[in-house]
């Protein structure tokens, strides 16, 4: 459906033929970090702020491009869990927007890597949101105020100049909570001061609802309003009506 995602997936598959074979059992977090992350994020997650190349023998040939990435010290298990389980990381190439893609690692590998990144500095743990305790109406209000401008009011995704706020159809409750706190790529960062944990529960409850909202009107057309409605108008209704005109319109013998 999304061309770049497909390409990313193919590239990821090509790249991923390696890791599974190289470290089938799991391997330590540090080793995985050295293999996949160090090239951009630097040794011990110190970050590479100024285009300096470093480490990572296995990936050295891929470092033709500039290597630039933030420090991972203090981002905690929260960020590592988010970026790795959404397939946002490892990134195909520096400078592009991370997209949801295939997760490269097995569950033990993920845990090891998350543990390692968490150990790099004192950072937040993986959140445990409880959307069932949230209030859906409050969630809709908050979502409209803070999120709808980019993610669209029914969380179907949208556009901001220079980036693509994703649709939230695949986002788990934990991932939503993590993303709100991190603010990946150009998304704002919302701390507990601006969106409390209980408000976050409400937002998550609303987003979960928005995945399958009340479509009492019938075929939902993706909840994005006039564009698909216009397509139905022309490609279904107008075609049917023109067809009907053709059936009715032939009156005289030829």
């Amino acid at each position: 459906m999304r061309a770049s995602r497909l390409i990313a997936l193919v590239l990821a598959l090509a790249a991923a033929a390696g890791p599974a074979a190289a470290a089938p059992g799991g391997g330590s977090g540090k080793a995985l970090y050295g293999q996949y992350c160090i090239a951009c994020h630097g040794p011990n997650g110190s970050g590479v702020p100024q285009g300096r190349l470093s480490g990572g023998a296995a990936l050295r040939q891929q470092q033709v491009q500039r290597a630039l990435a933030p420090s991972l010290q203090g981002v905690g298990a929260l960020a590592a869990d988010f970026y790795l389980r959404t397939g946002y990381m490892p990134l195909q190439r520096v400078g592009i927007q991370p997209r949801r893609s295939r997760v490269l690692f097995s569950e033990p590998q993920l845990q090891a890597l998350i543990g390692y990144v968490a150990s790099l500095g004192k950072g937040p743990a993986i959140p445990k949101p409880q959307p069932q305790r949230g209030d859906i109406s409050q969630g809709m209000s908050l979502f409209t105020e803070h999120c709808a401008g980019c993610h669209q009011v029914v969380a179907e995704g949208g556009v901001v100049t220079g980036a693509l706020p994703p649709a939230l159809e695949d986002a788990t409750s934990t991932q939503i909570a993590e993303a709100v706190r991190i603010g990946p790529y150009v998304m704002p960062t919302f701390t507990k001061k601006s969106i409390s944990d209980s408000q976050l529960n409400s937002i998550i409850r609303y987003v979960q609802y928005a995945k399958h909202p009340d479509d009492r009107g019938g075929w939902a057309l993706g909840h994005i309003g006039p564009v698909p409605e216009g397509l139905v108008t022309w490609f279904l209704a107008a075609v049917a009506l023109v067809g009907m005109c053709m059936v009715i319109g032939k009156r005289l013998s030829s």
Partner: protein
Amino acid sequence: MSKVRDSIVAGLVLLAGRGRRKPRKDALRTVPKLDPNPGAETWAILLFFFAALCAVAFIVVYAIDSLPRHTQLLGLSLGLCLLSIAAALIITAHKLIVTEELVEPYSPEEHPNEQELIAQVVEESGDRLTRKRLFKLGIAAAGGTLGLAAITPALSFGPFLETRYFLGTPWRKGRRLVDDKGKPYKATDIEADNFYTAFPERIPDQDKEELGAALVLVRLPVDSLRLPPELKGYDAGGIVAYSKICTHAGCAISLYRAPLFQPDEPRPALVCPCHYSTFNPADGGSVMFGPAGRKLPMLPLSVDAKGFLRAKGNFDGEVGPSWWGSRIWKPNP
């Protein structure tokens, strides 16, 4: 029992029986005669009865509350009813009636005699008038002014010449910034990489809808600010406040592009989701991309002794979409 049998027989006769019309005495028909088409006729009849069934179904569905997908069943029954009537009529048209092909002359291009007569009548009727021009002028004057008078009351719709209303905003020097629940913002509440919607303190809910009311607040590193000289001091320690209403077409600017890792990612920007006008919050709200023709109006901020954010005056330019006077006047401080 016999009644039931009788009605079944009657029903069958109704459905299957075909009445033979007595041949008309006069052989001069207007509509030519064609042979009957019993097959098509049966189809048309069946379709009409099916339509009746659908219409009944619509009423039944309407009456039963507990049905799931109520709207869909209603639409389906009514839609099918109408479509079967359509199908029956189309069969009738193609197979059951006589489709004559007739030729007829088009109406004449013009009727010279009538034209002449009309012109004559109009011309000759005015023969008694000696000052025709003045007479016509009088009619025109009366008609025109009466027309004007008739539409004059429509001026009461709203102000027309008084344009100062465009300049009004609820912001005054010293007014505190509050969130949508009315809680005042402290400078420390405003964190980097986030955006906040603010309103002036203590205004009625209805006034929050005014274009001049809502602000978008963001905090930028002080050394990244590039405010032009006339806007020096508008920020409060890196916190900048702009009108939340786009200067292009008035939509709310509810997108804040806040890069997590600056070197790689697009610069911070405020974006309007209607036509994607993109504004730079670091330099006083200039347009970076998109159709907006005017920068975002900026509100000067200060922090009071208790740490609350207050307006230091009014916006540096008019709020909302542009009109001819947008650049002439500024909101009163």
